[in-house]
């Protein structure tokens, strides 16, 4: 683990220029809706696959609280990272660097949503799921955003755990407990995160370097990043097949996981081989795009097996 000195001053909490200029849509953008949709989907799978039946209204409440909690974490992340968001092309149009929302408004919004989501989940569903949601938000905001992201190239490896917890939170909401299967769902997302984000970081390395974020390509170089992507993918694909071996998933999942896993390995090898020029960028982009489809198909198949008889 190497430390990289961050060149930018931390300016979160900078004085308000002017508040009261934002529309509800701007506040919605703070919640990172695309990330929220992935969280909702993986949480839905955890909810459905839990062994105990849960009333649809309670299930809806649990999903809503998990989604809002994830959004709150996103808002607080945008509050803290407003300074680096302002210098990265990918994030410069976000509400705070674009001047539509002040840092204080984002902080208040994020904290309010975090407290409400955890509180409502605890009151209307159960305390275990609320505690897990609170831990998830804490992990993402404090451990990942405030600490790891700017201090280590292993930031998204460890911090990625926060994005992996929603299925377990939903499982706990439905069943009142956690189990090996819910831990497996978390593990699949956890080991999927590094190849997914490092593929992005390979072709966005300049952006991260400008912002002083020690992503692996910036700190250790493209070759080492490609090696790590391949190693994680080699571990991820058999892990993603393990629900079949353990009896949690059926033939449909085995086929989908096998085929898409082969696709991930192929693309990871492609990224490993192509190291320079436009071919390298194209390979990284393909892997990034396919990794989203891969995770979606894995969880969609698990969902289908749980709700469609005979699948």
């Amino acid at each position, binding site marked *: 683990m190497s430390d990289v000195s961050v060149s930018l001053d931390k300016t979160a909490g900078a004085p308000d220029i002017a508040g009261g200029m934002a529309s509800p849509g701007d506040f919605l953008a703070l919640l990172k809706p695309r990330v929220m949709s992935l969280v909702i989907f993986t949480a839905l799978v955890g909810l459905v696959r839990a062994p105990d039946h849960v009333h649809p209204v309670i299930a809806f409440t649990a999903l*809503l609280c998990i989604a809002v909690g994830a959004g709150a974490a996103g808002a607080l992340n945008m509050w803290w990272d407003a300074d680096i968001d302002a210098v990265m092309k990918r994030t410069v149009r976000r509400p705070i660097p674009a001047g539509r929302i002040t840092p204080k408004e984002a902080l208040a919004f994020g904290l309010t949503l975090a407290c409400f989501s955890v509180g409502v989940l605890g009151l209307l569903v159960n305390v275990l799921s609320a505690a897990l949601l609170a831990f998830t938000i804490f992990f993402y905001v404090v451990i990942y955003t405030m600490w790891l992201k700017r201090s280590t190239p292993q930031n998204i490896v460890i911090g990625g755990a926060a994005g992996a917890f929603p299925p377990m939170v939903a499982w706990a909401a439905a069943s009142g407990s956690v189990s090996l299967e819910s831990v497996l769902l978390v593990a699949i997302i956890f080991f999927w995160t590094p190849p997914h984000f490092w593929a992005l970081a390979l072709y966005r390395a300049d952006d991260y370097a400008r912002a002083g974020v020690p992503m692996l390509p910036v700190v250790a170089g493209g070759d080492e990043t490609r090696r790590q992507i391949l190693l994680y993918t080699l571990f991820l694909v058999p892990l993603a097949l393990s629900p079949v071996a353990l009896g949690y998933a059926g033939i449909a999942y085995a086929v989908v996981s096998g085929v898409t896993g082969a696709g991930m390995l192929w693309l990871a090898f492609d990224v490993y081989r192509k190291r320079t020029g436009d071919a390298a960028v194209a390979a990284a982009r393909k892997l990034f795009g396919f990794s989203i489809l891969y995770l979606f198909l894995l969880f969609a198949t698990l969902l289908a097996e749980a709700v469609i008889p005979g699948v």
Partner: protein
Amino acid sequence: MAKANRKVAGKAGQGAGKPAPKATPPVDGVVLSEQQKRQRRARSLAIAGVLGFLVLLFYVVTIVKLGPNVMNRPL
């Protein structure tokens, strides 16, 4: 108009050499533009909608948790 003029003239006559009455001081506090007012209204409506939804959610979940016989009771 003539009365006003006489009043002014009278005052001028009485107050020769005195300074003219002071102008109204500028308005204090925050003055919102029309766009800011519209956005504030939109935010207020959004907050009201969310709070109303929360009330409904708590009501429905309470009914659910009370169980299927909640309406089945002797009056």
